[in-house]
């Protein structure tokens, strides 16, 4: 396979918002781990192999309290259950990917998913390489941020408070972009509605899985209704 720089040059600007967010959140993670007695070896290792932000933050308290690995496994699965939706959303997109597919699936974080799910690569570029660079650069930012945080500790003088808002802004930008495609408005409203409803009902620590269940139930209902309508139309013809 030939590596070309054009793909990297195309992919990099798309990852800059993630760069800002991951450096800050990764560094915060490295500092948190260091504060709990886990140095750069542990925090960098975990950022490389686990690579799941919210779980890693939770993982600090799991490590400190030394929970049973089986309990850790179940808790990790529940917290990361939203990845199942990313996988289903990317089935079609990844279907024809020839190179790096296992890595592309492994590296499907919230942010990489949101950058890739709207990605339409120009035909003159190698699509698989573009996907790889986006995923790999994001991964590097996360690991680099973790390492910096673990090494620098609280020596940072630059006030980074609020910089992690870059990730919120990234999701808002993708949401606005999708909103302009009219076909996606109903599911977008469903996603926001189900999430807000479940957030108010179940609180901030356990609303994701109920929200996913509500979304699946509504989509199943819509899908079945549509099927009934289609078969009625066929009968009418």
């Amino acid at each position, binding site marked *: 396979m030939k590596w070309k720089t054009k793909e990297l040059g195309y992919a990099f600007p798309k990852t800059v918002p993630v760069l800002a967010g991951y450096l800050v959140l990764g560094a915060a993670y490295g500092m948190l781990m260091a504060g709990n007695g886990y140095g750069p070896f542990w925090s960098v290792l975990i950022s490389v192999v686990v690579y799941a932000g919210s779980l890693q933050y939770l993982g600090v308290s799991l490590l400190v309290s030394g929970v049973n690995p089986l309990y850790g496994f179940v808790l990790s*699965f529940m917290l990361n259950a939203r990845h199942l939706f990313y996988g289903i959303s990317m089935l079609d997109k990844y279907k024809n990917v020839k190179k790096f597919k296992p890595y592309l699936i492994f590296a499907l974080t919230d942010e990489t998913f949101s950058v890739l799910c709207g990605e339409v690569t120009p035909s003159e570029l190698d699509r698989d390489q573009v996907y790889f660079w986006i995923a790999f650069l994001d991964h590097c930012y996360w690991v680099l941020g973790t390492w910096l945080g673990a090494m620098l500790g609280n020596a940072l003088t630059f006030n980074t408070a609020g910089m992690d808002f870059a990730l919120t802004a990234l999701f808002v930008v993708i949401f606005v972009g999708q909103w302009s495609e009219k076909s996606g408005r109903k599911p977008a409203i469903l996603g926001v*509605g189900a999430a807000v409803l479940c957030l108010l009902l179940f609180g901030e620590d356990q609303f994701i899985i109920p929200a996913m269940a509500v979304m699946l139930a509504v989509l199943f209902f819509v899908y079945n209704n549509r099927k009934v309508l289609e078969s009625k139309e066929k009968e009418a013809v």
Partner: protein
Amino acid sequence: MKEIGGDMLLVAAMVAATMLTRFLPFLIFRGGKPTPPFVVFLGKTLPYATIGLLVVYCLKTPILSVASQLSGQNGGEIIKNPGAWGIPEWIAVFAVAVLHMWKKNSLISIGIGTVLYMVLVQAVF
């Protein structure tokens, strides 16, 4: 050494669970077999719904602040304590959305929005 072994085991459990959530859909719906039509339908609708979920996830704290203010706790505090309504977040999100509808340039929208938010939380509120 025993403790390091325990930590390693826990990290391995976190890796296994995370990989499972990411690989499961691809393992169940392999390329060879036709994907069930409902899953195809999910593949077309879930990307939109999931981004909506992520936006709410990021804004959960300001959303809950507004909800608790509206439900009557600390009613009327908005002038004394605008932070309690998550005002910096709402201003910055509004700015990002308007900028993006206007300029349609992700880096401009995210960059200006983030700097605005940093100024709001560090210097204003």
